[in-house]
């Protein structure tokens, strides 16, 4: 029996508006990112030989993808769900795309990505994106059925220069009893 509701398929092809990250590329955030991943490369911190060709200090290649956070003054999902024992804290909505309501009760995991990089974001630059749901399919695995949700996203500078193009897979799976 399929675990993929027909109603979920209506989301395929849905596109987001252009969304602008709530903060520009912040030096302190680049530092925290570098320290968390264990790569304190000088190119991410200050002008040096390593970032001359990029025009100065830059953020990590994946940094723009993680810039789309909860904007100041918007609803706080942690607070809103504080009394819900099933709230998992996961970011349900990415890149301006709507939550796929028929699947929202299923735990979500990161399935992987195909990504192309074209340019690094410099400190102080604004980043924006545009995304769409490319496919929603069911797959049988050795651990049972899962649903694969693939979205395609272009990450750009505020001036529209392409930084990265990502095809991201999220996995939804029924909770084991």
């Amino acid at each position, binding site marked *: 029996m399929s675990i993929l509701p027909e109603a979920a398929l209506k989301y395929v092809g849905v596109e987001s508006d252009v969304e602008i990250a709530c903060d520009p590329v912040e030096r302190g*955030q680049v530092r*925290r*990112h570098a*320290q*968390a*991943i*264990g*790569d*304190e*490369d*000088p*190119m991410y911190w200050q002008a040096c*030989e*390593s970032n001359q*060709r*990029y025009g100065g200090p830059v953020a*990590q*290649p*994946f940094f723009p*993808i*993680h810039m789309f*956070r*909860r904007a100041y003054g918007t609803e706080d999902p*942690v607070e809103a769900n504080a009394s819900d*024992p*099933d709230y*998992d*804290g*996961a*970011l349900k909505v990415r890149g301006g795309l709507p939550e796929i309501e028929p699947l929202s009760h299923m*735990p979500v*995991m*990161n*399935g*992987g*990505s*195909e*990504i*192309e*990089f*074209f*340019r690094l974001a410099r400190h102080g630059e604004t980043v924006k994106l545009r995304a769409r749901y490319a496919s929603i399919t069911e797959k049988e695995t050795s651990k049972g059925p899962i649903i694969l949700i693939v979205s395609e996203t272009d990450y750009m500078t505020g001036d529209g*220069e*392409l930084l990265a193009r990502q095809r991201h*897979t999220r996995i939804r799976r029924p*909770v*084991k009893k």
Partner: protein
Amino acid sequence: MIDATKQLYFEDVEVGMDVPSLTKGPMTTAHIMRWSATMENWHKIHYDTPFAVNHDKLPGVLLNGSFKQQWLAQLLKDWVGLNGWVWKLNYQFRAMNLVGEKLTIWGKVTAKRETPDYGLVDLDIGIVNDQGKESTPGKATVAVPLRNGRPVPYPFVPPKG
């Protein structure tokens, strides 16, 4: 980090050669929490063991996929050097990685081809734990300069066709 005194050139690359590997860990809950806080990712499977185990039926708190993908980029960024470029990554999170694991991020050259402006190198990539289990198999393509050529163009311009 990139070693500014070394530059990889297309002519140096041979099919079958290994990229110098990167090691991380043993991973702790502090590593995972630091990454999750940096990302403002409050998904409980990364820091709330009772929730991960009892609610989501996982073996423990998990290393974030978003964490692991950073290391694939780091591995190749350091290898291609100042004048190279990490163009494409394609990877799947096929297996979970847990607290206590020591990870090796690896790459192996599978093909190379020359374009008029630079060389392209295809690789198999992945992350194995200290039990030898692969969690993040994938492929990558990087661009490296020709020995007598210019740096790879930046912003990167993919080859035509």
